[in-house]
């Protein structure tokens, strides 16, 4: 178990976090606009409809930007530093903040292809992280 801050769950995001119990990455889609939404919310930020649905995501993406944190923001993560925090452009067309693991943090570069991986949280949920895609 890491020393990470564990994300709160809201009514809106509950389907997302429930799916992480079986290591599934879901994305919210606006049915009317036929576009994915990140971060999850109650209405579409384009048309304001609440007709949204959850769909499985590919889990594939590329690194848009990356920083290696040499000192953790959260003191409980001190033994994890240095680690790579990155913005990931998912194949579906949304950008989320995450972390890239599975290689030295200094090896993570912009445009690197990555796939989702999971880290257990204390309550059975998992936190989505990314690792270099295997060829």
């Amino acid at each position, binding site marked *: 178990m890491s020393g*990470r*801050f*564990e*994300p*709160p*769950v*809201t009514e*809106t*995001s509950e389907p997302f976090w429930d799916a992480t119990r079986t290591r599934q990455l879901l994305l919210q889609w606006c049915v009317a606009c036929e576009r994915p939404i*990140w*971060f999850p*919310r*109650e*209405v579409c*930020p*384009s*048309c*304001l409809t*609440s007709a949204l649905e959850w769909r499985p995501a590919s889990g594939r993406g590329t690194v*848009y*930007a*990356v*920083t*290696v*944190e*040499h*000192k*953790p*923001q*959260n003191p409980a*993560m001190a033994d*994890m*530093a240095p*680690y790579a*925090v*990155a*913005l990931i452009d998912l194949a579906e067309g949304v*950008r*989320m*903040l*995450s*972390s890239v693991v599975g290689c030295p943090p*200094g090896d993570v*570069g*912009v*445009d690197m292809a990555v796939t989702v991986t999971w880290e257990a949280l204390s309550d059975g949920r998992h*936190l989505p992280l990314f690792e270099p895609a295997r060829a």
Partner: protein
Amino acid sequence: MRGRAAIVGVSDAVSPTGELELHGRALEATVISEALADAGLTLADVDGVCHSTSSLGLAEYLGIHPRFTDSTNTGGSSYEVHVEHAAAAIAAGLCEVVIGVYAATPRSDRKRGGGGRGRMMMPGPNPSAEWEMAYGMRMPMGPYALAASRHMAVWGTTPEQLAQIAVSTRAWAALNPRARYQDPITIDDVLASPMQSSPLHLLDSCLVTDGAGAFVMTSAERARDLANKPVYVLGAGTCHDHLMISQMPDLTTTPGVVSGAGAFRMAGIKPGDVDLLMGYDSFTITALLHLEDLGFCAKGDGGPFVMDGKLGPGGSLPMNTNGGGLSYTHPGAYGMFLIVEAARQLRGECGARQLDSPQIAVAHGSGMVLSCMSTLVLGTEAAL
């Protein structure tokens, strides 16, 4: 301002039970949607946002990038104040369609056990807690480091070029006996300072100091009768396009493109007319982005642009003559100091670091994590 703006759509949500099904942002979005429909407008028309807690958070949630923003909180009268401000903004041409909203559900919040969100007037959850905090990104440095990472990858910007900004800024601080750090530094010093959030080093980063500032404004007519040379507001512009860094459309381009263009247009000036740039330097990358987004150089050219030292003493584009957030002071929200230094330079009170008769100064503030840019064009009587 009289007769220059009108309320054109309204909505409210109430229930005889005293409780509503929706709460938080969902409730806000509903009444906004209804009020826009009432007006025959859509979200795409909106270019101004008022919210008594966070106009940035609301705009991010709605996916809009307003150029007028107002988070004034005066308690129960906040919304009358918002109307007042919006009317002035519309009359001044800052924006055309402004939304304002309020939602609180203290009665049903008790049942939800949500910790009294309504009482705090803080709608909904905190997206950053849910989608950012687990990853341990340093705040506020991490998002700026991500911007630097992207700028380097796309435009080939180098650590040495970022470091040059810190070096030029320190050269100004060396002329300011009130600066926190006054000893000259070199590019090598910056690169040898401890790495923080890569690619940003300690000396790429602003200080943490105490500090305070204030300004007084009055009408142009009264100003002419007072002791100091007036510093006129010639132009102003604002824009925000995200609150969380993951929602920033392009990490190499800030909403300063919009705020700067608006302020320059109102003032009737071009970048070449600017005698002093006070550009918020929370980090070296912040200042570099300002140079590009305000049009002092082309997008992507910021790195080569700064390398000849033009930002420092004797250079062609003096920037942050007080020593900036990098070397003068940075108590957390540095924007006030941009205005104070710009006024002192235009009044000719800066001693060893005084520029030669500057007429036009730009104070360009950056809020949160490259989220909200606000640009002021300030000038002397001669610049009117």
